[in-house]
């Protein structure tokens, strides 16, 4: 049996492809791009919430938030490690990130001007990420699937923490409730955009579905997210800012409006409200750290020489 046929059979029988297995170059490339993009998202995703660590309004919230942002760095590490099993190099991927040649999730190009955003990101953004990621726990490439299992577990924990912060704030003062609503108003549409453009306009999807790198279409996942989120919003006591949002008994799903896709494409193109800032921040951290990484390398070479 030839390599390609064996690969196809592995995929078809829902078994996992492992690093030592033969795989088509297109599969490898698609995976590296997708996992790297996911890793970059975790790293850039540290910034919008990291923005609030020094200003968290209680010591308990400060500890929760710092631990969460630290987890994101950890997720980035697992995912970069998964790309390395495919022959990629972390330094090279980082270079592609900071020069804008590889993307990350556009949601992180939105600013976090309010402490309520910490809760709303946990609830809506992590919630949307989980909808996107749970199917990836069954993705065909083994190291990626295993990383996703661990990541999804932690993300669910983060989502619950975010929702719990919002419940606490909604049970607080009028000012706190207003903060939560204002944040939901800002993040609702960007959260819907996290599933990507409508299926009709999406590229790359078909092959990824066939290879079981991806397992659901953008629109399927978006619908799932909306259906899941509406009762949570009701429980919380916030209004989702979509006048078209209503239950459709016939479909057994919620109908809802469309995000502003022009804004979406602008943000993807790098003109997001905080896009330049995010990349500049990452680039500066990387460049400022160059002398440290270089010193560590030289030191370890010296040590190896001596021993």
């Amino acid at each position: 049996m030839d390599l390609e046929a064996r690969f196809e059979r592995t995929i078809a029988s829902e078994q996992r492809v492992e690093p030592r297995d033969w795989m088509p170059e297109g599969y490898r490339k698609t995976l590296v791009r997708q996992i790297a993009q996911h890793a970059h998202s975790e790293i850039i995703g540290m910034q919008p919430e990291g923005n609030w660590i020094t200003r968290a309004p209680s010591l308990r919230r400060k500890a929760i938030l710092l631990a969460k942002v630290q987890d994101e760095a950890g997720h980035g590490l697992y995912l970069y490690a998964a790309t390395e099993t495919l022959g990629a190099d972390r330094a090279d991927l980082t270079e592609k990130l900071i020069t804008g040649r590889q993307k990350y999730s556009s949601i992180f190009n939105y600013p976090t001007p309010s402490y309520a955003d910490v809760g709303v990101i946990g609830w809506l953004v992590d919630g949307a990420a989980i909808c996107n990621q749970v199917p990836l726990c069954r993705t065909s490439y083994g190291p990626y699937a295993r990383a996703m299992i661990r990541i999804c577990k932690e993300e669910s924990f983060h989502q619950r923490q975010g929702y719990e912060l919002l419940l606490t704030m909604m049970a607080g003062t009028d000012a706190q409730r207003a903060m939560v609503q204002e944040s939901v108003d800002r993040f609702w549409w960007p959260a819907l955009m996290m599933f990507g453009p409508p299926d009709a306009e999406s590229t790359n999807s078909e092959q990824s579905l066939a290879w079981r790198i991806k397992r659901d279409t953008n629109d399927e996942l978006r619908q799932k997210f909306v259906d899941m989120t509406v009762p949570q919003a009701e429980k919380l006591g916030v209004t989702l800012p979509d006048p078209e949002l209503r239950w459709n008994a016939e479909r057994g799903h919620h109908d809802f409006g469309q995000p502003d896709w022009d804004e979406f494409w602008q943000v993807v193109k790098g003109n997001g409200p905080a896009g330049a800032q995010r990349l500049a921040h990452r680039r500066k951290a990387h460049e400022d750290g160059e002398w440290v990484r270089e010193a560590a390398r030289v030191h370890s070479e010296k040590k190896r020489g001596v021993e």
Partner: protein
Amino acid sequence: VDGLFEGCLALGDDALVLAQRLAQWCSRAPELEEDVALANIALDLLGQARLLLTRAGEVEGAGRGEDALAYLRDEREFRNVHLVEIECGPLVGGDFATTIARLLVFSSWRLAVFTRLCGHADPVLAAIAAKGVKELAYHRDHAAQWVVRLGDGTEESHRRMTAGFERVWPYVPELFDADPMVDMADVRSEVDSVVDAVFGAAGLERPSVGPASRVNGRAGRAGVHTEAMGYLLAEMQYVHRSLPGARW
């Protein structure tokens, strides 16, 4: 126990303020592994701060919990040493080497102090100290490894590591001010020998800069802080103070 409130407050404030400083590195470290490590250290210190401030509040008996003490005291009521409040990077006032220089000195000192507090008459403080000892030993070793790497690495890293120690050195003597809970002369000789050993391994010289003088003899422990402290507190306390009556 006499001086217990003040003691818990001072050690709690040290940890709180340094955690705040270290948290500024989050997403700005030289590599991802170090981002994780610095966040870990900040989380340990934040945990120590919470326990110590809670204990201080209990001892005081005026109904102040950790958040009342952290968010509603004014600058002159904070009792941390200057060493933890000064800016050492990443944004201004230093760089990664300066941050590591401070961490080495501070964690060596705090480890020596906590080791001695494990036998303190207050069982709560003794338990906090016992838990902290393991954490601080890790912090100290982490810092020491970096000092050696940077001291020994490149010409640039050696220069920066030297400058980092010169930046923090004037604030070191305050750590050894007489304290009713611990024999600080004893702590000093322990810290000196740790730091000297690290300097030796790193090929660095002990800095020769003198101590920062005080304001009528007073420094951080007496509530007189450097100008960096006011900005740190404004940032840390602003959200809490601007939403009076809120629960978090």
